[in-house]
């Protein structure tokens, strides 16, 4: 027979289970080492996803908080709206997870892993497209269809033409403005040069 008073809280059970599994996982991966295959060519080499070196930290916090909430609810100490309480808890947990992610994603190790994996992927893509491009272009040509690079060149030319039009329009505007300034200037000079009739008479 199970005594209800001693029945374990499900969050405690999950927490315990998760702690054991993350502990086993981190031991397998090596606390200070990488969690991924350690091949010399792997971009994950030397990457520790938890710079604080405690892979359980985030989950511990997460489950402890839910466990506390569960205990409170069972004791009838919950607020008027359990969903609101849960929402609050969840928001706090997400904030905590966001901080952990930020710490992980902002580490040099992650940056290095990201750069290496991107470089490998780009190099592979470049090789592949170098090999495949002539064949793809031939196939498209056979169907009388333009290739991507041909379309890009066309778009570039259209954009270039629009820019030239804008430059022409700009130059035209400047010329018109200059002409109008000259016209205004000459009109005002003419006015200045033409003395009033009374003055003329007097001179």
């Amino acid at each position, binding site marked *: 027979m199970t005594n209800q008073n001693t029945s374990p809280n499900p969050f405690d059970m999950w927490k315990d289970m998760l702690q054991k599994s993350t502990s086993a996982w981190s031991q397998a991966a090596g606390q200070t080492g990488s969690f991924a295959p350690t091949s010399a060519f792997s971009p994950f080499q030397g990457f520790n996803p938890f710079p604080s070196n405690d892979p359980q930290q985030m989950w511990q916090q997460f489950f402890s908080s839910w466990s506390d909430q569960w205990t409170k609810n069972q004791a*009838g100490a*919950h607020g008027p*709206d*359990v*969903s*609101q309480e849960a*929402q609050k808890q*969840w*928001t706090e947990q*997400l*904030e905590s*997870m*966001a901080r952990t*992610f*930020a710490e992980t*994603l*902002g*580490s*040099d190790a*992650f*940056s*290095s892993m*990201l*750069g*290496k994996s*991107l*470089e490998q992927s*780009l*190099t592979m*893509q*470049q090789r592949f497209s170098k090999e495949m491009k002539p064949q793809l272009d031939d196939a498209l040509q056979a169907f009388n269809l333009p290739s991507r690079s041909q379309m*890009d060149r066309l*778009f*570039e030319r259209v*954009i270039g033409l*629009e*820019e030239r039009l*804008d430059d022409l329009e*700009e130059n035209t505007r400047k010329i018109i403005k200059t002409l109008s300034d000259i016209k205004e200037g000459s009109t005002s000079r003419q006015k200045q040069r033409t003395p009033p009739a009374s003055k003329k008479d007097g001179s």
Partner: protein
Amino acid sequence: MVESTDFTSQSQQEAQKNMSRAQAVIDSFVVNPSAPPIAVTPHEVVWKRGKARLLRYRPQGQAARPLPYLIVPWLGISRPYVLDLLPGNSFIEYLVNQGHDVYLLDWGEIAEEDKNLGFEEAVFKIIPRVIERAMEESDATEINLNGICLGGTLTACYLALNPDAPVRNFIAVVAPIDFDEGGLFRAWLDERNFPTDLFVERYGGVPASLMASGFKMLRPTMEAQAMSSLWANVEKPDYVTNFKAMSRWANDYIGMPGRFFSQLAKELYGKNRLINGEFVLNGATVDLKKISQPLLVVAANQDFIVPALAAKRLMDVVSSTDKEFVELPGGHISVFSGRQAHQTLWPKIDEWLSTRSE
């Protein structure tokens, strides 16, 4: 026994509340999934070059302010309609209702064919032309210039290279200037790790899909947080309308031109050349000390894209004597487009300009 009855009764109430929320989700997203109308403030296109367009929003209501207000937003990444998101929740609508003659530079939908668009084209051709066009359209001799995010970086470069520019006041909102304080992007774009040249050679820029991945990776819990808030507020129609509009915008990424990205990653995030006075465009060094206009620098206290320190450093390097820094509550976008912006940023800008634009 009593406790158990209370618990059951409360559980029933909870279940009913959650049923009601589930019903609201079905009503708002299944029965009526239509997106709310966005970017509806009346405007006209007054200039166009390539994909870039200049939009004019004429002043309404109050007496028109004497100087046109030009907004230069970020280049690439996402669309600028977040500045005119919804009626009643729009920065541009607020400005026009305060009597500002607003101009918005829309860089257009950037794609691979724009790979040669860089700082030079933006700073030496596009920005001067939109300023000139705005002055001509409004029959003014000066403007107020507002750069947002990377638009603030671009406008700062423009002002530094054109000390006699017809700009009366300069407002830099969440604009990165000190890239050493550039948050996660600073770490990811580290020149020791990030293969910028290979990336640009392969894609011709940053495609929209990769841009989305990069920004979502910045904050992996963001969508869970948004969903969580939605569940709590799903019975408020205004919240749902705003959520739909914001979700649409937040998933509507566009690419970044290759040349611009290369300069940003290698020279700014990589070597922090702008703040160090070593950033050279078309043979001219960008010296931020040459900025002398009255300056308002705005940062957000929860900005993880452009942390407040990255924006604040502009204050230290300009020669403006009239300058003010404000750090407002909110994130990178919500500081100028969130619900709280009605009470914080928008009136702040309007008030700051009112004494400096006469």
